[in-house]
């Protein structure tokens, strides 16, 4: 589903990603680990279509990430919630429904799912932090993406939102979608993950299935590769 081959990304002369290759198959969940500055966010941004690699190829269902067909299949949650404060929850989702070609009838379904149906007409800026996060989750899942790209998704979520996200990710994988997420919350991520990639200084230091060892001692990978 997702194929990354020999990807290099430079910021000026500095290589943020060096010869990175990995594959993600349908239904899989890849946990992308590494210290800050290792290149996780850079790689995720390439997958989500925000930047282009200098060398190498990236394909999502056979198309480049910037292709319209690929973008229609990707759901992204980054550090910001990416909703508009002056619009209501419903209006926000309506914009995204139009952008992604989703039937409007789906909107109340998703609002219900994330527990915001009751406040559908409330403006996003009036929402509590947890509610804003749940709106962001609705935004990302609205168009039934086949690839979910999540940059440290559990970092600022409250318990309710974490549980919601975990169940949505499970459902998504069951219908054949795949997930790539970077995280510092090793325990939550490794529970969900089927595969693990560790980035160190822009290179892939380890790539493989998530093992029982990792579950038992989440910091095992970091210790093994001298991340300390």
């Amino acid at each position, binding site marked *: 589903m997702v194929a990354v081959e020999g990807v290099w990304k430079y910021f000026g002369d500095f290589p943020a990603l060096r010869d990175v290759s990995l594959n993600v198959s349908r239904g899989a969940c890849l946990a992308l680990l590494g210290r800050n500055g290792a290149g996780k966010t850079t790689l995720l941004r390439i997958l989500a279509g925000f930047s282009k690699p200098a060398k190498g190829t990236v394909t999502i269902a056979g198309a480049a990430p910037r292709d319209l067909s690929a973008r229609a299949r990707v759901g*992204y949650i980054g550090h910001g919630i990416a909703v508009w404060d002056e619009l209501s929850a419903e*209006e926000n989702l309506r914009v995204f429904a139009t952008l992604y070609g989703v039937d409007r009838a789906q909107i109340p379904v998703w609002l219900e799912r994330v527990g915001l149906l009751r406040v559908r007409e409330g403006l996003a800026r009036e929402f509590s932090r947890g509610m804003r996060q749940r709106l962001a989750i609705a935004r990302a899942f609205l168009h039934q993406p086949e690839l979910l790209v999540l940059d440290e998704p559990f970092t600022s979520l409250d318990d309710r939102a974490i549980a919601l996200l975990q169940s949505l990710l499970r459902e998504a994988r069951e219908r054949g979608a795949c997930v790539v997420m970077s995280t510092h919350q090793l325990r939550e991520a490794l529970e969900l993950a089927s595969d693990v990639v560790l980035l160190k200084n822009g290179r892939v230091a380890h790539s493989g299935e998530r093992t029982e060892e990792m579950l038992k001692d989440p910091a095992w990978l970091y210790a093994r590769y001298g991340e300390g």
Partner: protein
Amino acid sequence: MNSFGAAVAIARKDLRSELRSKEATNAAVSFALVILLILSVAFEPTGDETHAIAGGLLWIVFAFSGTLILNRTFARELQNDALEALIAAPIPGWALFLGKATSSLVMMLVVEVVSLPIFAIFYDVSLVWTLVPVLLLGTWALVVVGVAFSALTVNVQLREVMLPLLIYPTLVPALIASMILTGNLLDGQAFAGDNLTWLRLLVGFDIIYTALAVGLIDIVLVG
């Protein structure tokens, strides 16, 4: 995914958002009134000469107060990282650009419609309907260049300073054409002879810069 539908959706969401917060238009209208006041101090409003330069003064008001709106075009998307969501959405760059340009055009027209009667009163000029095409074409020039450079400078330091610095030299031909046309039309002239040439220049400028902006917007936003 209908691209035009996407552009319309983006324009509508900008306008809806602006209608609720009025962040840019309030500031722009106030700024326009302040400039009108200052200009009337600098140029005695009832003098004969002022009548002749009325066209120029009007576009000074529009160009300067417009920066406040144009600056916000892409800057308003930085809050909550909404810009990323727009770039990631499956819409062509030109649809995003057109949506943004349309909402900016509407906002600028609002500022102009409010300032025009006040300008007419301060400077004792009679407004004519022939001004409408010049207003639309001239404002589109402002908007196209302004929105393109707003996208260019969205992640640049000192964005608010950079934008005027970059757009005004670029807009010189469009501003000259708009100013002269407005002055001539307010003077009672029709769209004939020299005025037609200025109009053609304005249309040409609009076409060239719309094409450039639409063509380069993807590179500007994604790299």
